[in-house]
Structure formats: C-alpha cells, structure tokens
C-alpha cells in the first residue's frame, strides 16, 4: 500500500477501499498542517483546518477525476479552506456574528504556551498576514513549501506568468514591514 502512487490510492478509495484513504491522510497530513499553519500562524487553527480538509476530501474524493494531480488538488482544497478561515474571520469581525457560534474565536489570538513566539517571529507573521491573498499564497507555497511555479499555478488555478512577480513583491513587503518596525522600536 505504501508504495502505491496517489492516483492508485484514490482509485482504490473510489472503489470502496477505506484503508487507502487512511494512507492518503498519513501521507499528506504533515504537509497540509504546515500549509494551514503558515496561513493562520496558530497551531489550534491549523489543526482545525487539517480536520476540515480531510473531512472535505473524503466526500469530494468521489467527485475527483484526477484532472490535476492528487496533491495539487489537495493543496488547493487546503489553501481555499485556509483563505476561507481568514475571510470568514474578516466577515465575522465586520458583522459580529461571533455570538452565534460557540467555536468562533479569533485567528491570531493568544497562542498556547507550547507554541509561544518571540517578537521577531510575531513581526514576520504579521507582515505575512498583511499581504494580499495571492501574494500570501504564492509566498507560502514557494518560500516555505518549495513548490515549483508550475505547481503553484495549478494549485491557485492561475497562469504561471506573474507568479514570480507576486513572489518578489511579497518578499519585498515582508522585508519592508520588518525593517520599518525595527526602526520605530
């Protein structure tokens, strides 16, 4: 099973083999976790996203036709859910419907003690969180996940042209944000 490629596992799963889903989760859980974590900068929220991604993947996998590779599709689901968490947060902040949701709490709220961060790290996370969505996604997928521009284009459903520029502007803004903050301290 471990040697099967992703699409073989997907096919097995579609034929009713439940174990192949487990294998796909084990194979990608760490990647999915880190992509999520880069977006929300918080372990608990990243964990929520990981759960949501695999629950969604379980049902959506029946519709998956393998047009793109499995992991580009999986990462796309992850990026979409992570961006949705951030967007929902913005909409919630705006319309304040938090009181209707027991689980509602701020992304970027107090980190738990095990994941304590220093000032510099907070600054960098702040800089990344202020990037426009596309630059943020390109930066995370290129800098942290080390994906190729072709893979990033597939994940973000966009063309390759312009991604390098997105990456450059993202890195430049992060640098400017951090050095501006250092000057004002």
């Amino acid at each position, binding site marked *: 099973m471990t040697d099967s490629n992703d699409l073989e596992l997907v096919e097995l799963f579609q034929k009713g083999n439940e174990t192949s889903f487990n294998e796909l989760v084990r194979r990608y859980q760490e990647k999915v976790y880190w992509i999520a974590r880069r977006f929300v900068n918080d372990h608990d929220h990243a964990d929520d996203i990981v*759960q949501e991604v695999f629950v969604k993947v379980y049902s959506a996998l029946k519709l998956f036709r393998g047009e793109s590779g499995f992991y580009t599709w999986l990462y796309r689901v992850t990026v*979409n859910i992570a961006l949705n968490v951030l967007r929902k947060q913005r909409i919630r902040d*705006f319309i304040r419907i938090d009181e209707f949701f027991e689980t509602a709490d701020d992304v970027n709220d107090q980190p738990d003690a095990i994941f304590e961060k220093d000032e510099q790290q907070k600054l*960098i996370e702040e800089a990344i969180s202020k990037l426009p969505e596309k630059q943020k996604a390109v930066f995370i997928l290129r800098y942290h996940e080390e994906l190729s521009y072709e893979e990033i284009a597939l994940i973000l459903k966009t063309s390759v042209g312009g991604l390098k520029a997105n*990456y450059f502007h993202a890195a*430049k803004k992060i640098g400017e944000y951090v050095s501006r903050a250092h000057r004002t301290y």
Partner: protein
Amino acid sequence: MHTEHIKYDLMDYITNRLSEQERIRVEQHLRKCSDCNNQYIELLATDIALKKNHDKVPTSIYYSTILPRVRERLGSHQQSIWHYGYGAAKIVLPIAVSVFLAVFLIRMPKESLSEAEQTEKLHQAVKDLNEDEVVQAVEREYAGLSLSPNQEVAAVGVAEHLQSGRFLKSAISKQIENEEVADMDIEAMISDLDGEQVDQVLSGLSERNIL
C-alpha cells in the same frame, strides 16, 4: 535581459532554487546593476530574518491523532446540522442570504443591468432548478472544484432556497457533510472571492444597511 526579470529571480537566487544557467545570468547582472544589487541586499536580509524563525513543531504524537479524529468526525456528521440549533440558524440565515446576494451581484457582468433587472434575472435563473443541482453545486464549490455553467446557475439558486427555507430542509435531507450550516453557506459563497472582492461585499452590505 530586462531588469524586471532579474529582480523577480532574486529570491530564488538567494534560496538556491535557480538552474546553473539562471544563476550565472543573475550573478552577471548583479555585477553591473546597482539597483538590483540593492534589491538583492534587502531580500537577503529578509531571507535571513525569515530563517531565524524557529517554528515550534508539533510532536509526532500530534500527527498520530489526526486520522482518528477525522474518522470520528466522518462518523458523526449526520446529527451535526442541529449543532447550533434552529434558532441560531434562523438568525444567521438572513445574513447568509445578504452575503450571497452581494456576492452574486458583484459576480454578474456589469453591462448596464439595473439592480431590479439583476434580481429579475436571478429569479428567472433559479425557477426550474431542482434541489440535487443546488446541493451538488454547493458541495463542489465548497470543495474548491470548479462549477459548470449549469452549476453556476444552481449556486445562484441557493439564495432562493435560503430565503424560502427550502435549502435548509434539503440540506438536512441530503445530509450535506457540514457542521455549521449557516456558517458553511457563507463559506461556500465567499470561497471564490479574493480579498478585494470581500471588501466589496462588506462595503455593499453596509451600504444596503443590511447589518
């Protein structure tokens, strides 16, 4: 080679992700261009700052809990639609409708349709929809899959279903895999938007005094 192109390669140069040929091209350019050199120094500092970041890594025990919890959620989603109670859904659904309509309106081609005409078009579009199409569209949209033109129309139908309460009923009968029906509605609606469009939706909502 134009400076723009070199500039855009600098991060990949710093992080060692260029081919030999590209690397040489960047180095040759850096020797003669002070502008790119300044960019290079700035980005180098950024890369160093980023690398100094030591992310606290979860233990392997954490990873071993993921699958059991996913399995648990997969086994228990049937009752989850009532998680927040019908009362909360009733309050939140009108907000969901508003968000949906705002999203729908900014997605429409701008060509000279008045708001009344747009609303009329929306009503037309959803008249003959069946619930299966609607449910499928929401599921696909939610899963980040692209929608066929038919499903786009079906997605529009969600607003109608929301308003009439039909959607809530069909969601229950179809047992869509979600925990927070109202929350998911908003999520499905905004999943294709970029940050700028979210801004538009928010300002659209406040202009209409919906909130």
